[in-house]
């Protein structure tokens, strides 16, 4: 069966199959970007590990940030089946030549941000990721299956933490509302530009990499999340939000903000990248040592 037949019959492409260059490149770019998002995403939440307000929350947060490292690792592995190397991809990230999700360029300035990230950012990520478990590229789909299975706790812990805050003291409630105010719009932007302005979407859909349009997934997220905010007694920061009898319709998204953050002008773009570059540079001597040791002690075949 050739590539197109596999795609047409909703089959799966495997690493050594022949595939169009553009398909391979699209996948490498998308999977790498996804992997980068996981490891950059460790920073905003990792920021609160040492300050978590209870030992239970600390353990949950450590486990979650650890999962993100694991998820990055699964995804780099999936990208590597396409003939690229993790080190190469990391170099591209560090050089600013590959992107990661814009959401991680916002700061986590209060504990409620950790809760809001779990609830909103992971909630949006799950919406995006579940369809990817049926992606036409086998290794990516399998990595996503594993990730989605592990990630189901991420959103729940966030919502639980948010529930406690919104039922807590006045200061905690205010912290929770403030976090929702700051994370709501960036979370909606996680689904990407409107389909009409998303030139690559159609091709990705045709290749079975993407299963649903950006707008449809965003709408599903809004429909799922608005009632949750109501449950929490929090106000979604969108005066234009309305119910049309079938759906919760949100107001206009400020796409100029998205474009700015994408360009590198978000509040934390530089900080996140510099942190990554620093960690990578600090670890170089350790990686070299492991290599040197292995070549000294390689078992004779």
């Amino acid at each position, binding site marked *: 069966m050739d590539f197109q037949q596999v795609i047409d019959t909703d089959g799966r492409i*495997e690493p*050594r*199959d*022949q595939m169009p260059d553009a398909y391979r490149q699209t996948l490498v770019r998308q999977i790498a970007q996804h992997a980068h998002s996981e490891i950059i995403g460790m920073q905003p939440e990792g920021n609160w590990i040492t300050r978590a307000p209870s030992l239970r929350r600390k353990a949950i947060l450590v486990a979650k940030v*650890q*999962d993100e490292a*694991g998820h990055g*690792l*699964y995804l780099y*592995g999936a990208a*590597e089946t396409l003939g690229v190397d*993790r080190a190469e991809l990391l170099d591209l990230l560090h050089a600013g030549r590959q992107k990661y999700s814009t959401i991680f360029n916002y700061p986590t300035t209060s504990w409620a941000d950790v809760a809001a990230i779990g609830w909103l950012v992971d909630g949006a990520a799950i919406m995006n990721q579940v369809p990817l478990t049926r992606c036409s590229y086998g290794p990516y789909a*399998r*990595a996503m299956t*594993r990730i989605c299975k*592990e990630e189901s706790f991420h959103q729940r812990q966030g919502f639980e933490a948010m529930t406690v805050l919104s039922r807590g003291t006045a200061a905690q409630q205010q912290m929770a509302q403030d976090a929702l105010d700051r994370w709501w719009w960036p979370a909606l932007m996680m689904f990407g530009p409107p389909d009409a302005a998303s030139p690559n979407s159609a091709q990705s859909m045709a290749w079975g990499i993407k299963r649903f349009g950006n707008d449809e997934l965003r709408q599903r997220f809004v429909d799922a999340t608005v009632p949750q905010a109501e449950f929490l007694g929090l106000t979604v920061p969108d005066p234009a939000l309305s119910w049309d009898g079938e759906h919760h319709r949100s107001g206009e998204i400020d796409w100029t903000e998205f474009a700015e953050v994408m360009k590198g002008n978000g509040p934390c773009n530089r900080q996140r990248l510099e942190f990554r570059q620093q960690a990578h540079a600090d670890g170089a001597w350790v990686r070299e040592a*492991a*290599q040197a*040791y*292995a070549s000294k*002690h*390689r078992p004779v075949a």
Partner: protein
Amino acid sequence: MLWEVFVRSRRGLSHTHVGSLHADDAHLALRNARDVYTRRQEGTSIWVVPAAQIVASSPDEKDAFFDPAGDKPYRHPTFYDVPEGLTHL
């Protein structure tokens, strides 16, 4: 160096491929596999294999390798009629 990881999820089952990881030697590869792939009690035994050591059939040889098995239905029990009313066959 890239390693492929295989995990036996419980006794009685075969090892199954779960993914890959990087390590410079076998000792660390095995421990990394334990940390990365069995955090949620997914395993009772782990294999790690240098990815470069795996010999794989090529998609180009797919027809020659796998098609010839397609026209031998007599290898399968469903090929045979079992007379009505008989059991243990």
